[in-house]
């Protein structure tokens, strides 16, 4: 199993966030604290209990299948940059 430091590095990469080295060190100390805090969870005997996946008995909400105008214009306004039907990202090729 990989170390908590290696796992943390991967996690930071996974969420795509820029952190300074002191911040990463601080998070590593906090992660160690967290893993200690969670020890009783690992030690707890859950026997044959099946994991709960949904806290409620949600069912599919079926709508009538007909074309709707939608709210694209409103959603475009909420995005930082939007043009020609696309969300804009910075250029990555010259």
């Amino acid at each position, binding site marked *: *199993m*990989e170390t*908590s430091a290696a*796992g*943390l590095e*991967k*996690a*930071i990469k*996974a*969420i*795509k*966030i*820029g*952190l300074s080295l002191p911040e990463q060190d601080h*998070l590593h100390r*906090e*992660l160690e*604290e*967290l893993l200690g*805090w*969670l020890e*009783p*969870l*690992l030690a*707890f005997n*859950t026997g044959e*209990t*099946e*994991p*709960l*996946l*949904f*806290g*409620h*008995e*949600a*069912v*599919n*909400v079926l*709508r009538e299948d007909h074309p709707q105008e939608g*709210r694209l214009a*409103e*959603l475009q*306004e*909420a*995005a*930082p*940059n939007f043009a020609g039907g696309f*969300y*804009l*990202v*910075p250029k*990555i090729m010259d």
Partner: protein
Amino acid sequence: MELRKTTVRQAADAVWKGEITAHQLIEKTLKNCSVLNEGLNIFTYLAGIDAVEQAKAVDQKIKNGEKPPLAGIPVAVKDDLCYGVLPTGLGSPAFSEFISPVTAAAVERLMEAGAVVIGKTNLDDMGQGSTTLSSPNGPTVNPWLAGRTAGSAGAAAVATGVCMLAVESDSGGALRQGASHCGVAGLRPTTGRVSRHGLNAHCSSFARVGITAFSGEDISEVLDLISGFDERDAATAVCREGISEIIKAPGSKDITIGYPVTAFDYLEPELREIFEQARERFAEGGYRIEEVDLGLLREGLLAYYVIAMAEAFSNHARFDGIRFGKTAEADSLEEMYEQSRAEILGREARRRSIFGAFLLSKDNYGRYYRQALKIWEMVRQEFETVFERCDLLMLPAARSLPRSLEGESGFLEGWSEDLYCAPVSLSGMPALTIPAGQVDQLPVGMQLVGPPFSEKMLLAVGSASGSTGK
């Protein structure tokens, strides 16, 4: 009209009868909000002209012969619930100007009933916390004792009397602990009763939309108005065919209250005494008290945090500067994402997202996440077993008195405050916080927890038993 001495019913009656117009009521409310906000930091945005326009529309409806049930009632909305006129700040500087294209279902329904949105209330970083201490706007001060946190800004708004209702989210207990710390009533409803449409949930499995008010009686006026099926939230499908409400009259021998003796061991003696006194009051009031076992509180708290962090990792993924938030200037696409997200996610949101990703990794998924899902099921079963013998259960809302605004404390200390609320969130059952007593000039609240759709019984018992925050 002094709102702190008036019920929602009385205030709406006064507006119907023309004793005061909705416009006058809201003008006065806005003035009070501005004054109190300077000292207490309750609101992130005040509605101002928009609130006045809403109030004028209510007055017009009354002139037209309509009787909106919440005519002119001022409502505060937590800033993780969308209201299409004011920014939805989410406790992140990157969203300070974000106007959502939608309005939360619960807010829409309150406005249809004549309530007037007067502002958005402060919250923790991305709504993650029960103190407002991680808010980029600074913490909300407890109206009972400066120097302590209010827990939730909506509860502070109600306790000070600047508004009569607050619509708030509750995942691990922010609404319920806020009500406890401010001496008011707060209801977290059963899963599926109130639509979550328009709520920016960091933790979809446990986030619910609830109501804070002066008293259970005031919440009763509102509950039906915001409840029911909404095709935009699949969990409310349970309401489509009508729900079976559990209703029993307060003070009746028919009501058995569960008292989980060992649960109170985590409390300091002066807090424990409050609950012993509450137990005695219930017994004197004619309720049957039954000692029950609730042994999974600690494991429930830990499981809640594992699942909540995993879901925060997923739910925060959309805040990338492209779909939501501000796009950071950067030389490369990768840097743009990293910088945008660093500007959007504050310290608490980063911590939970990163730890969530860690706990979901190949090495940790089975050990932590799957284990947490099993404990979730065990906690749900434990509550079900309790309600085979009892009609409701009394529990503290918070583990200690409101935290100090000064001084740093560890993040786990803060999370541990959710000991009594997080397991109830796992159970999916409704909980009402009502004032139970006072320690050191600060109110202490208790949760009344009931089986699914027992809100009306909880509110009836709570209204008859708890003191109000007035």
